[in-house]
C-alpha cells in the first residue's frame, strides 16, 4: 500500500478525531481580542476521524525498522533493548502529569527520583556530581564545555583552543566552536589510539581542554588516558570525556578515575531510554570537584527528609546558568533509574562485559572476510572497511543497503572519518548469540555476493517500501513541507 500524507486526504468539512467539551456559551473572541489578532480555521489542515488517524500511523509505523522489529548493529549509537516496564513507570500519573512548577511539597516524588539518579550516575562514572538538565548528549557536551569555559574565565582567562582527536564525533568540534574555541585536531596513532607525545606537542597554556571519547569511536580503549590527562592538567587544561561509548565500561572502569574532569551521558544509549526515531535524548553531565561550582541550574538537593531544587543564581554564583527550561527530560530520568535499579551492581558490571563480548565475537567471526583497519583490541564495537571488496566495486554503502534485504539495519557507515569506508558495528549486550550468528551470516553472504554478483548488491535494497532515495536531489531543491499540488512521485 501507499500511505498518503495526512494533508492529501480527508479534508472534508466537519470531520474530526477528538471529542471536546462545548464552550460555556456564545462569545466572540474577535470582540475581546480584536479581529486583527485572529485567524480563521487553517484551510490546509486535514480533517480526519480517529480511525483514519489510527490507520495512518499504524501503517506508517510498518515502514520503519526498530529495535523491536530487528537487530541494530549501529556503532557508537548503542541501540539496546528498551525495557517495556520503563514505559509503564514513566506513565504513572504522578510522573506523567506533574507540572514542573508544582510547589515542591507536591513534587517530592519527582525530586527524590532525580536525586537518586544523580547519585547513581555520579557513582557509576566516578565523578563528584552530575547535572541532569541537558536535553541530549550534544547539549550535554555544550554544557560541559561551557563549564570548562566558566572555569577558565573564573581563573582569569577563557583560553582559545580545544584539542580533539581525529576519531571524534562531529559534535565535539561543533560544540567547541559554539563556545568560541578554535579546534586543534590531533592525529591518532597506527594502533588507533591517541598518543601522549601527540598531546604533549599540541598542549600549551592557551588550550582550554582536550575532548576524548573513551573507548574511542574505533572501539579502542585510550590506554594512555591517565598520562594524557596529566599532560593536560599540568598546563592548566581540563579533560572532557565524551560519554557516548560509556556502555563498554559499565562496572569495569570509571572515567572519573582516569583523569577526566567532565563527561556527558547519553541516557538513550547507555541507559536504554528509547531513541524514538531521533530523540528525546537526555544528556546529564558529571563533573569532578573543581567544576562543581559551575554546574547549571537547577540542582536537586536533599535537605533533611525532603528534597529541594536550587534555582537561584544567588545560591550558586558561579553557575553557568540554565541550559534548558525547567529541570531536564524528567521522563527519561524515570526510565534510566528504573534500569539502574533493576540491574544493580552485578547487572551493570555484566552489561559492560557482555557488550564487549558480543562485539569481539562479531569481530572474530568476520575478520577473515572484512578488512579490519586496526588490529588493536576492541571493546564494545568494531570497525571494518570495504577494502577487501575494492575490486568488485562494491562499497560500504552498498554493503549497508544490502544488509537491509537480509533484515538488518545497516551499521554506522563512513565514520569515524579516519577510516576509509568504515563499517562500524556495535551489537550491545541485549542481543543473543543466535542473532549475532544470523547477522554474521548475512555479512558473509553480502561479501560473497559482492564477488559473484556486485550489481545485485549495488541494486539493493529491494525489500523495503522504497529503494535507494535520491539524497542529492533532496538537498539541491529542498522540499521541506507539504503544499497543495505536491505529487506522489515522478518519472
Amino acid at each position, binding site marked *: 500500500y501507499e500511505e498518503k*500524507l*495526512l494533508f492529501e486526504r480527508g479534508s472534508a468539512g466537519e470531520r474530526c*478525531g*477528538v471529542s*471536546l467539551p462545548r464552550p*460555556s456559551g456564545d*462569545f466572540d473572541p474577535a470582540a475581546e*481580542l480584536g479581529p486583527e489578532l485572529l485567524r480563521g480555521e*487553517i484551510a490546509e489542515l*486535514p480533517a480526519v476521524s*480517529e480511525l483514519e*488517524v489510527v490507520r495512518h500511523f499504524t501503517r506508517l*509505523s510498518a515502514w520503519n*525498522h526498530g529495535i523491536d522489529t530487528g537487530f541494530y548493529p549501529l556503532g557508537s549509537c548503542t541501540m539496546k533493548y528498551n525495557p517495556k516496564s520503563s*514505559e509503564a513507570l514513566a506513565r*504513572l500519573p504522578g510522573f506523567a502529569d506533574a*507540572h*514542573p*512548577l*508544582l510547589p515542591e511539597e507536591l513534587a517530592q*516524588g519527582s525530586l527524590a*527520583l532525580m536525586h537518586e539518579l544523580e547519585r547513581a550516575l555520579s557513582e557509576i562514572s566516578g565523578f563528584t556530581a552530575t547535572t541532569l538538565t541537558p*536535553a541530549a548528549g*550534544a*547539549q550535554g557536551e555544550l554544557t560541559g564545555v*561551557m563549564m570548562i569555559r566558566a572555569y577558565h574565565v573564573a581563573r582569569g582567562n577563557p583560553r582559545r583552543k580545544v584539542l580533539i582527536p581525529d576519531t571524534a564525533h*562531529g*559534535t565535539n568540534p*561543533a560544540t567547541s566552536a559554539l563556545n568560541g574555541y578554535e579546534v586543534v585536531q590531533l592525529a591518532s596513532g597506527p594502533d588507533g589510539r591517541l598518543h601522549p607525545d601527540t598531546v604533549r606537542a599540541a598542549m600549551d597554556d592557551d588550550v582550554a581542554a582536550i575532548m576524548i571519547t573513551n573507548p574511542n569511536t574505533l572501539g579502542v580503549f585510550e590506554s594512555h588516558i591517565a598520562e594524557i590527562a596529566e599532560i593536560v592538567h599540568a598546563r592548566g587544561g581540563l579533560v572532557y570525556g565524551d560519554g557516548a561509548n560509556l556502555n563498554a565500561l559499565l562496572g569495569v572502569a570509571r572515567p572519573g578515575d582516569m583523569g577526566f574532569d567532565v563527561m556527558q551521558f547519553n541516557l538513550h544509549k547507555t541507559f536504554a531510554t*528509547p531513541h524514538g*526515531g531521533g*530523540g*528525546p535524548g537526555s544528556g546529564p553531565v558529571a563533573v569532578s570537584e573543581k567544576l562543581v561550582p559551575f554546574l*547549571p541550574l537547577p540542582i536537586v538537593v536533599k535537605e533533611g527528609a525532603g528534597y529541594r531544587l536550587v534555582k537561584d543564581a544567588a545560591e550558586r554564583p558561579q553557575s553557568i*546558568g540554565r541550559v*534548558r527550561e*525547567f*529541570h531536564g527530560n524528567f521522563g527519561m530520568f524515570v526510565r534510566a533509574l*528504573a534500569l539502574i535499579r*533493576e540491574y544493580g*551492581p552485578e547487572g551493570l558490571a555484566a552489561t559492560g*562485559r*557482555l557488550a564487549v*563480548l*558480543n562485539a*569481539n565475537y562479531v569481530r*572474530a567471526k568476520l575478520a577473515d572476510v572484512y578488512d579490519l583497519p586496526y588490529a588493536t*583490541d576492541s571493546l564494545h564495537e568494531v570497525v571494518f572497511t570495504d577494502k577487501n571488496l575494492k575490486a568488485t566495486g562494491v562499497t560500504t554503502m552498498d554493503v549497508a*543497503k544490502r544488509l537491509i534485504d537480509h533484515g538488518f539495519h545497516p551499521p554506522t557507515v563512513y565514520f569515524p572519518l579516519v577510516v576509509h569506508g568504515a563499517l562500524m558495528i556495535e551489537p550491545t549486550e541485549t542481543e543473543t*548469540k543466535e542473532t549475532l550468528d544470523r547477522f554474521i551470516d548475512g555479512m558473509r553472504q553480502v561479501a560473497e555476493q559482492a564477488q559473484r554478483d556486485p550489481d545485485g548488491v549495488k541494486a539493493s535494497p529491494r525489500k523495503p517500501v522504497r*529503494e535507494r*532515495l535520491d*539524497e542529492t536531489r*533532496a538537498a539541491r531543491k*529542498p522540499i*521541506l*513541507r*507539504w503544499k497543495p499540488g505536491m*505529487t506522489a512521485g515522478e*518519472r
Partner: protein
Amino acid sequence: MRYHPHTPEEIRDMLAAVGAKSLDDLFRSIPESLRLKRPLAVAPAQDEIALLGDFRRLAARNEVAHPPFIGAGAYPHHVPPAVDQLLLRGEFFTAYTPYQPEVSQGTLQALFEWQTYVCLLTGMEVANASMYDGASATAEAALMATRLTGRKRIAVSDAVHPEYRRVLATYLASTGDELVTVPHGPDGRTDPAALARAVDGSTAAVILGYPNFFGVVEDVAKAAALAKQAGALTVTVTAEAVALGLLRGPGELGADVAVGTFQSFGNPLQFGGPAPGFFATREANVRQMPGRVCGATVDKQGRRGFVLTLSTREQHIRREKATSNICTNAGLCALASTIHLALLGRRGLADLARLNFDRARLLRAAMGRAGFAPVFSGPAFNELAFQVGDAEAVVARLAKKGLAAGVPLARWYPDPKLSGALLCVATELHSPELIELFAREVKG
C-alpha cells in the same frame, strides 16, 4: 537477567571463538590501575514487582487532586489515549535517527508532516524536525540571527519566559553576544517605546513571547515592522501552541522566526520534559537553520520518499563549521504532537483554542467575583495574572489541599507592582465547576 540473554554455555563458546579465557580478559587494554576493583555502590538489583511498587509510591507523592492551574511555559492539556497507543508502537518508539531512509520512511513521513503542521500553525515557510525545547530553540534563533545579520546584539522582551531568557543568556555568554532586555508596560505587552529605544543598527533580533509569559498577546506586527526597519529579525516564542489555533500565525504578522514548544499537543507535562521544541522560519534562512530537517525526494523507481536533508549545515558533516551542535532532538515528542494535531484536525484545533480562550474567560469572571482583578490589561489567551495579595501564601495554602494554584510572578520579577500577582491558566481540563472551586479556594 531478562535483558541479558547470555547463558553460561554461550559465554563459554563465544569466549572460545574470540580466543579469550574470561570476560575480564576482554579488558586487557584497560590498564589495571584504571580498573574498578569493587562493585558499584548503587542500590542492589530489584525485581520488577518491587521496582513497580517503589516507583508507584514515589509517583503517588506527586499526585494532585485536580489538574494544576499552572501554565508558565508548560500547559496541562488532555492527551487523547489514541496518541500514546500509537506512539508506543515499537516501530516508532525504538527506531534510530532516520539516517537510513529506506528503513525509516515511517518516521520520516511523520516528520515531514510535523514540519508541515509547524509551518501551517506558525505561518512560516520552513521548519525543522524539532528542537530540545522552547528555551534552547529561542537561543538557537538568536544565534541564527547573529549569523544572518552579522550583528551581535539581541533585544529580548522581559515578558519572554524568564527561564528561556536565562538559557538565552547562558548561550550568548559562550558566544560573546550581547543581550538587551526590554521592559513590559502595564498592559503586559512589551513596552513599545522602550522597544524602539532598544532596537538599532546593531540589533540582530528582537524576541517576543506570543502569547508572552504573562499570557498576554503581543502586538507582533508592530514590533516586526520596527525590527525590519532596523534590519533586525523578529523572533516570536510560543510556549502555549494551542493559542495558534485562534491567533494569527507569527509569520503572517511579519515575524522572521517562530520558535517555542508544541508540548501542548500530545505531550504530557512529565515534570517539564521531554517535549518538542519547534523552529520555523522563512525559506531564505533555511541554510542557516539549526537542527535536522526532513525533505521529500524520489527513490530509484521515481516514487516519492523522504530523507534527512541539508545535512551540510550539521555537525556530523560540517563539524566546527556547523550551524549548531544539535543532533538528537525530540523526534518522538514531535510525533506525539503530529498525532494529536491529526486527531484534532482543522475544526478540532479551532475548537480547542476557542475552548481554552473560553475557560480563561470563565476564570477571569470567577476570580472577579471572588474579588481578584487581572494584573494586566492586554489581550489574553488562556493565561492570566491576578492580584491575590500574598501570592506565595496562597500557593502554600492551596498546596495543603492538593491544589496547584499557579505561580507568583514575584519569583522572577522584582517589580513591586507584581508582588501580589499569581499567574494562572485555564484549559479544557479545567471544567467550569473546577474553576469556581478554584476561585473560592483562592479566596479561602
